[in-house]
């Protein structure tokens, strides 16, 4: 029984990582709504945000079911504090300019796409079902983000400079996505999730092709400087996201909306 409970907790934690990545990146992306650099981009960014929030709902619903304590997806989104959030730090960083936003989307989506693709073959049918739904949308997000990275990298002098700066800024955060801990290992053992080293290899290929085409230089810096988000050790930014996002639920406990 102890082992079973432990497994359940591990699976729950791992599902939260998926849900939290989607929610927090969705939140950041939604901040663009009404402020995009062109009407068409404004609409596209809202689509991305809508997709991600949809994904987090699916992962949270499954997480709550696994946990078995009667919590809902909304409870998980709105009533946990920062140390209980398990997203990688990369997704909670501020948007910066539209270049930084698209670079982050690209770096994360390349990981997200490969992870979800692998998860469609998960031994857990509920996980593979959600992954199959989400991967179609993320495939499009990755196409769009990598296309924009190439175009802006190889655009004007200014757009090139901004994209290189964005890449340099985000690079020390990307390593966390592939840093496996006991949770990741346990999930891989069980065949539910892939080994993160396998995902990293595929990610490297996508990133290196795209950066080449974009005429951008891979930063000469460790990619795993800023880690810990998956274990609940976040940047200061997450607290502000949650303060804003959870305000109504916290100020009016138990109210229905």
């Amino acid at each position, binding site marked *: 029984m102890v082992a079973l409970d432990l497994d359940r907790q591990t699976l729950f934690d791992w599902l939260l990582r998926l849900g939290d990545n989607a929610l927090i990146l969705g*939140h950041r992306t*939604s*901040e663009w*709504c*009404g*402020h*995009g*650099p*062109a*009407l*068409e*981009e*404004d*609409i596209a960014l*809202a*689509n991305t*945000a*809508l997709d991600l*929030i*949809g994904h*987090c*709902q699916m992962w*949270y619903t499954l997480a709550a079911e696994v946990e078995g304590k009667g919590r809902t*997806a*909304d409870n998980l*989104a*709105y009533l946990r504090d920062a140390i209980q959030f398990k997203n990688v730090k990369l997704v909670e960083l501020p948007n910066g*300019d*539209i*270049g930084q936003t698209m670079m982050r989307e690209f770096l994360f989506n390349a990981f997200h796409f490969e992870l979800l693709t692998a998860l469609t073959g998960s031994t857990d049918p509920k996980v593979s079902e959600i992954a199959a739904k989400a991967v179609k949308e993320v495939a499009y997000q990755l196409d769009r983000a990598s296309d*924009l990275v*190439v*175009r*802006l990298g*190889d*655009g*004007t002098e*200014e*757009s*090139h400079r*901004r994209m290189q700066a964005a890449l340099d800024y985000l690079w020390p955060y990307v390593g966390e996505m592939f840093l496996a801990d006991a949770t990741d290992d346990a999930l891989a053992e069980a065949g539910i999730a892939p080994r993160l080293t396998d995902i990293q290899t595929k990610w490297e290929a996508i990133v290196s092709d795209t950066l080449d085409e974009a005429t951008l230089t891979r930063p000469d810096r460790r990619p795993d400087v800023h880690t810990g988000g998956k274990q609940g050790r976040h940047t200061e930014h997450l607290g502000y*996201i949650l303060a*804003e*996002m959870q*305000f*109504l*639920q916290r100020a*009016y406990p138990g*109210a*229905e*909306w």
Partner: protein
Amino acid sequence: MYAQMITSEKSSDDPELLAAFQARIDRGERIEPKEWMPEGYRKTLIRQIGQHAHSEIVGQLPEGNWITRAPTLERKQILLAKVQDEAGHGLYLYSACETLGISRDELFDRLHSGAMKYSSIFNYPTLTWADMGAVGWLVDGAAIMNQVPLQRTSYGPYARAMVRICKEESFHQRQGYTIMMKMAQGTPEQKAMAQDALNRFWYPSLMMFGPSDKDSVHSAQNMAWKIKINTNDELRQRFVNETVPQARYLGLEVPDENLTWNEDKQGWDFSEPDWSEFFAVLKGDGPCNEERLGARRKAWDDGEWFRDGLTAYAEKQAARRKAHAAE
């Protein structure tokens, strides 16, 4: 209504052509982009459709303001989808306007410089979550009053944009009203928020229809051209008649002591909004004019390098293809 106080331009065209043009409109024909039209008709339409388009994209801001604070994941998705629709509607309307021979960038420029206006309603702040309900219910409700008849407007691209917009907007007012229902039936604090939102948005919503124009020459010309279908007073009366029972169903009070049922006209008598406030807001002295226009200008200016970068890439690619083909 998203296009307020549209003054019509005079046309100095051949009277014979003008009469024939008017006859086409009177027969219910649609005017299409490449066809002859009086200069006044064209300029007035640019003003009206442009203002309508600007209102859609400025209208993203007061609601966009609450996307990151929406109280549930589902409410967040609905609100995001709705505000996204507004961007889409702006895009459709700008496209319709562009068929009249003005570019979208030029229209943006006129918005940013203050030469063109947007609806006064979006210069009011959204202070609580109940405002998301009030905006959907009242502001979209008022907009729909105007947009439904405009599906029959004489200018083809404008009418077609309206058809699409009305179809997509059908859920907007309803989602607002369901927020109001939840709030009105919720905790005492929620109900107080709902009443407060109604109090703040009632008169600004009535102002959306613009001051009475029953004696206005501009209005008469625009109605003859069928780019305006009803008078401001007709639409305002229709709006009040529909909204009062909806407010009562919610158990909320319309903030108007003079609201009484008039058996003869089968409609409600109601107080006029404070028109001096309306003109002050239009002139730039509303609570949020600077923020709204500032946000639009910032988005545009900050996006310049992005748009130019993409243009540069497209040009390079075209040149590369050409060079490649020449090899």
